[in-house]
């Protein structure tokens, strides 16, 4: 529901990262200018931020349940990081009090230019306190799971020279009255504007009292991956699991790198379960793809338990909990005995009808 988003979502370009009202922002993404030659990095990050913002939504449409996912905020700075590293990206996000940071660089590689983007969690506490931490409850006990990673690395965007030239020429981005690639319209004022909606390769921009269309040159297929995954993660943290499931699934079935596709598949499965459906089959598929991921094992166990607790039949519930227990036994050696998650799981299972056998072992 893009048309109402500006009411609840702010999008601003900051030359300095101060004096921003965060009072109503639940999830805040910082996009510093990407490192790169001339204006290339800045232009690439500008368009990525614009697209991510136009994909945010405050509630589903239709909205029979009256859901409100709060507000989201995408801010970007024209200043590049002192160095294009995770360390500097996190420092910039902490300083600006942002939860997430999308950062990266554009650099020459052979005859072309490669753009490498990353999405990092800057404020774990804030993200956890929102929807970033999956928590299931039973008789006063919590079992929690955070995100699979703190830093997500996207597939490289390979820019042929024709696209690179196009981006370098964008010193003045024209604001057009209709969807045109170029026009004689006034230049986009990069200090302050609002992206209203995106349609295809064009974004409708409001600048002062004027509105106009801006053409967003196609970067590569990986652009969609960056935009979809960032949007999905913001939706996930805001508790908009319908949106996060859809966007993560798009990344999972794309031609992206295996690692980011895998993370997306796992988060799509978790989103399904958190939405009230059963994401277990998606998580089982993820475990088949990568049977070495302890995180997927944890997610699958939690999904099994969540689904079990929804069952009204005692027999069905016991079966689902026994499945989770069997899976856990197989991977038990990958956990330390004193890990909080293990303690919570054991207690959770005991409250769910299992019994303690020896030491920390639980049988259902």
């Amino acid at each position, binding site marked *: 529901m893009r048309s109402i988003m500006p009411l609840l979502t702010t999008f601003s370009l900051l030359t300095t990262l101060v004096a921003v009202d965060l009072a109503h922002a639940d999830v805040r993404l910082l996009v510093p200018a990407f490192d790169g030659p001339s204006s290339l990095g800045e232009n690439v990050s500008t368009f990525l931020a614009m697209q991510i913002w136009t994909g945010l939504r405050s509630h589903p449409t239709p909205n029979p349940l009256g859901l409100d996912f709060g507000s989201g905020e995408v801010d970007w700075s024209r200043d590049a990081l002192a160095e294009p590293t995770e360390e500097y990206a996190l420092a910039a996000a902490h300083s600006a009090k942002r939860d997430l940071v999308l950062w990266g660089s554009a650099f020459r590689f052979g005859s072309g230019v490669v753009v490498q983007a990353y999405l990092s969690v800057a404020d774990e506490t804030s993200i956890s306190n929102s929807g970033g931490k999956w928590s299931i409850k039973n008789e006063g006990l919590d079992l929690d799971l955070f995100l699979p990673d703190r830093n997500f690395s996207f597939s490289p965007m390979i820019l042929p020279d024709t696209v690179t030239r196009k981006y370098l020429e964008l010193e003045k981005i024209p604001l057009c009255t209709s969807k045109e690639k170029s026009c004689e319209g006034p230049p986009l004022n990069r200090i302050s504007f609002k992206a209203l909606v995106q349609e295809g390769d064009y974004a409708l921009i409001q600048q002062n009292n004027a509105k106009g269309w801006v053409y967003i040159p196609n970067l590569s297929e990986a652009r969609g991956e960056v935009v979809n995954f960032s949007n999905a993660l913001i939706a996930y943290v805001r508790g908009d699991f319908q949106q996060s499931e859809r966007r993560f699934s798009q990344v999972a079935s794309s031609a992206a790198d295996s690692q980011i596709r895998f993370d997306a598949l796992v988060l799509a499965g978790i989103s399904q379960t958190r939405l009230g459906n059963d994401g277990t089959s998606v998580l089982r598929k993820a475990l088949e793809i990568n049977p*070495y991921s302890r995180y997927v094992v944890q997610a699958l166990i939690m999904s099994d338990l969540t689904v079990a607790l929804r069952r009204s039949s005692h027999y069905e519930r016991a079966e689902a909990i026994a499945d989770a227990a069997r899976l856990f036994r197989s991977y038990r050696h990958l956990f330390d005995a004193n890990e909080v998650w293990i303690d919570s799981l054991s207690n959770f299972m005991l409250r769910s009808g299992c019994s303690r056998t020896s030491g920390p072992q639980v049988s259902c």
Partner: protein
Amino acid sequence: MRRCVYRLLCPILLIFSAGHVTADPADNRYVFIISPKPPSDIAKQGLDAWVLMLSNNSRSLLQDVANRPVSVVFRLHEGLLENDTLESWWKTQRSLFAVGAVAVSNNEDKDSTYIDSDVFLGDLKGDLERPYLHFGQAIRPNGYQSSRDALAILTLYTYSVDLTKGLKAGDNPHAACLPLQKANLYERDLDAATAAGLKPLLTAIRSGLDRLACGGKP
């Protein structure tokens, strides 16, 4: 550190300036790159791009899989490659690997730059038969991903073996499994030529995953 005007040159400057480093924290791991002087400007540009790719991507790689702060420190040394050059450099620090990188190119064509790499893994060879690997990478845009992932796999594998060496019987192997399972995922994105060059390493990764029972016990 002052902001570098030409980003491409910064890692090189950092590495060269690191010859007189102060005492390193215990959890630094070193990667040595020894390279003869490139024969042309194009070859030098290709080598610089290759080093930038290696350093940029490996920096955050270990932070993502380590449960405590750990950094990869890169040292670039311009010099000839003798028989024991790689071993000598590898032994000077707590190293992941030392790589002899030879840049060759045709001056007319930027896409023809090729980095021929000999790698020494020392006692971090793990399940490899020999502590040596050899592979080549063309510096061309469409080969970027495969080249990046090959070096990521090498970094993750050696780090995992380093952690495995510290394990005692009955210890939880998860810390060593984590980089290994990521390396296993990266493997899927390699192009056929790179995968063929790294075949012994890829086999060693699968062997390590099985030996540590990273995929669970029956």
